[in-house]
């Protein structure tokens, strides 16, 4: 909650993608700076918050992490509805997961908020030896569809903060901060201001 005098811009963000692509790992890396090799599957959904200062404003990400299996597809609209941003995740070592990602993008375009910022994340970028989806292919797809694209690795943290930062930058600046208010963030470097933790 906005208790420190900073004007937070709340931004609902949802993670979608085939199961086992690393959605929860990306969130955990971003929110807690942690990574587990055997991150358990998400049942139902999980919710996290994380704030991120960008220039004059601070985005407060309200992150919905969803279960990936197709069987739970029917629950997804409940989570992406009203979302300002979505990260569609695929696994660079798995072509099927990229195909599935494209389907998610289509669905979001059809049923999501029309102004939604959609990012495509090629996760597990550390698995270079098993790479099946070339960055160029994904990049082209992203360009053609107006998506933000980054390869990420929740394991090494590569691209993770950048991904969220870039999303924050693209969020509509509906509610600019009053500059007179005190902000404890160094303007020159955008960084995390606070975190809120999930689970035990």
């Amino acid at each position, binding site marked *: 909650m906005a208790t420190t005098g900073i004007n937070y811009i709340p931004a609902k963000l949802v993670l979608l993608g085939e199961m086992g692509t690393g959605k929860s790992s990306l969130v955990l890396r971003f929110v807690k700076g942690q990574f587990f090799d055997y991150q358990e599957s998400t049942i139902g959904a999980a919710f996290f918050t994380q704030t991120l200062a960008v220039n004059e404003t601070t985005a407060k990400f309200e992150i919905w992490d969803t279960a990936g299996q197709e*069987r739970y597809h029917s629950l997804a609209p409940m989570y992406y509805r009203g979302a300002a941003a979505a990260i569609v995740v695929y696994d660079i070592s798995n072509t099927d997961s990229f195909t599935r990602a494209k389907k998610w993008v289509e669905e979001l375009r059809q049923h999501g908020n029309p102004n939604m910022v959609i990012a495509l994340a090629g996760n597990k970028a550390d698995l270079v030896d098993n790479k099946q989806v070339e960055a160029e292919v994904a990049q082209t797809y992203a360009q053609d569809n107006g998506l933000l694209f980054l390869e990420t690795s929740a394991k090494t943290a590569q691209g993770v903060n950048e991904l969220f930062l870039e999303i924050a930058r693209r969020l509509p600046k509906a509610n600019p901060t009053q500059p007179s208010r005190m902000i404890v963030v160094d303007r020159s470097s955008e960084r995390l201001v606070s975190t809120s933790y999930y689970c035990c």
Partner: protein
Amino acid sequence: MQEAELHDLSDDPDYVASQQQGSGGSENQKCTRKSNGPTEPNGSEVVYSKDNVAIHPTQYASERISGRLQLIKRDLSLFMTWIPYKQSASYGVGQGSRVKLPEKDRNLYTIRAVPLTDVRSIRRHTPTLGWQYIIMVLTSGLAFPPLYFYNGGVREFLATLKQHVFLVRSADDANVFLVNDLQDPLQRSLSSLELPRAVPVANVASSSSSLASVHSDDNSNQRSNADYHDSSFSPTESVGRHRQKVRDPARDLSIQVLEKFSLVTKFARETTSHLLRESQIFDNIGGYEKQQQVHSSPVKNQVGGDPVSQELQDKNQIISDPLEKIACRNGKLCEAAATLVGTFELIDSKEAEQQSLVWGKPRLPPLGHEEWATFLDEEGRIVDSKALRKRIFYGGVEHGLRKEVWKFLLGYNEFHSTYAEREFLETMKRSEYETIKHQWQSISPAQARRFAKFKERKSLIEKDVVRTDRSIPFYDGDENPNVGLLRDILLTFSFYNFDLGYCQGMSDLLSPILFVMEDESEAFWCFVSLMERLGPNFNRDQNGMHSQLLALSKLVEFLDSPLHCYLRQADCLNFFFCFRWILIQFKREFVYEKTMRLWEVLWTHYLSEHFHLYMCVAILKKHRKKIIEERMDFDTLLKFINELSCHITLEATLKDAEALCIIAGENKAACIPPGTPPSLPVEGGLLE
């Protein structure tokens, strides 16, 4: 992927049935429309009629109840009906299986002329694949089971509805349509009430504007005086006093206003107290003001130890009266039950806030070997299975005994079987397991390349087993063979029950079973037995989960109406925040040993086969104060619930759940419709 998805659906007999009925159904629809005629003789007009709209009392397609949904206009009111077809005309019944449903079941679900003024909201689900359905929530908070539009047409239904009632899309959820939801609550209540002309105009003007502002604040959950707490409220007392209060116009007004709002929480009381406070304009009581407003109120001096204050007290109780009445009436509960709940609430509120209801019987130590032996006769039969189930319900089982006892609890071994019979069964089942396992093991790489569904399933399972309980010594470390066993069992299961296949959450359910059984075949068959009960949780259309969440909602309404009303106000009545609890039986909420303890208690089906739902109520009830005081919205609530993981005290919760289960008593039938999973096989032998 896309292809796999199509495969999935084409595999689904329900889906296929619905597709096939698509064409035939619309044919039929035309017929009925013609025969019915637009205008009925009694002056009512059918403005909408849709055939092949079905309710699923169970997960089985064959037990689908199809019927006709109609909107009927009579005088100036609109009513909705859903009448199931007569059994003989029931083309909605799945092909082949002509399961006759008892007439009472069919009647149970019939919706007879519900006025649309009683409908609060309609949630539509229009997935691109699969069936469309709607869920109607009444102003009372009750929800009808999902109405599946087998031939589509939800949009048309809503469009027709919109021509006759005030329908607005919820700002929070584009698929929720609020019925008769005027923006300004006062306007809403006033517009639907025939107010006496004598209302002083000036007063109305001034107070209605302030009221409007109060309410807009309410709606956005930003009210500053959130600490309002109606401490004088006590359901029992109010039920008792209810009869003494007669014909007070202001009260009648307030009751009606309250009924319009139909919010039964403290928040509702808060909200309605504002209304009532403002409604002093309809009342000649000059300083009619709530105590809670004393500090900021200009009428401060009038409220004290004087008669006005006493009157206030009475008013407060009046406020709670109709609310309770609504809750009771809509829950179809008799007054005695309401009193019981009231008493229960009273006792609850006497407890220190953090304390739970210590009503359940004292928990016992787990069942040990010596005592276990007393349950068996010479040949190994369990003489009194009910006594055994009761014993385990109250104390669980020592770990060393689980391997033996779980097989009975899960229904893999029958209670009246002998040692010899069980030994024989084990041998048979071991060989049967190998046969099924061989089915997928014998798939050659070349065959697998042409078997997308197999490859996909294998991949899903492999992705999940490597991340299931890896911190438990039994599964930790690289190349742990037990992880391989999990995989083999799940893959074999997906061949044993090919329609259900593999679904996320199953590995969580299997893990403790394999840990206990330490045997592949035994673990497999125990898992099969468990899935007989919990399989519906994993249905593609989520119907098994929906029906349990609905039952949970009704239980909460009955057992904790303030919480229920808060959740309604916060638009959280879908109870999706309990999804994980129910789907995998609290597996992620407790440490491993406690999970096993809980499961063996649940599996006794001693007090109820839906004991897990009472667990949910018990936990929610325990945190009700926090949930309401912090005004948790859906997001916050889900986060809060997820974070309760590893912070729930099992034994205390079991006791609370037991108390709740006893309190629900006979009324549990009203709350939990037949067929709500885990439904027991009829010949299961667990509940003699």
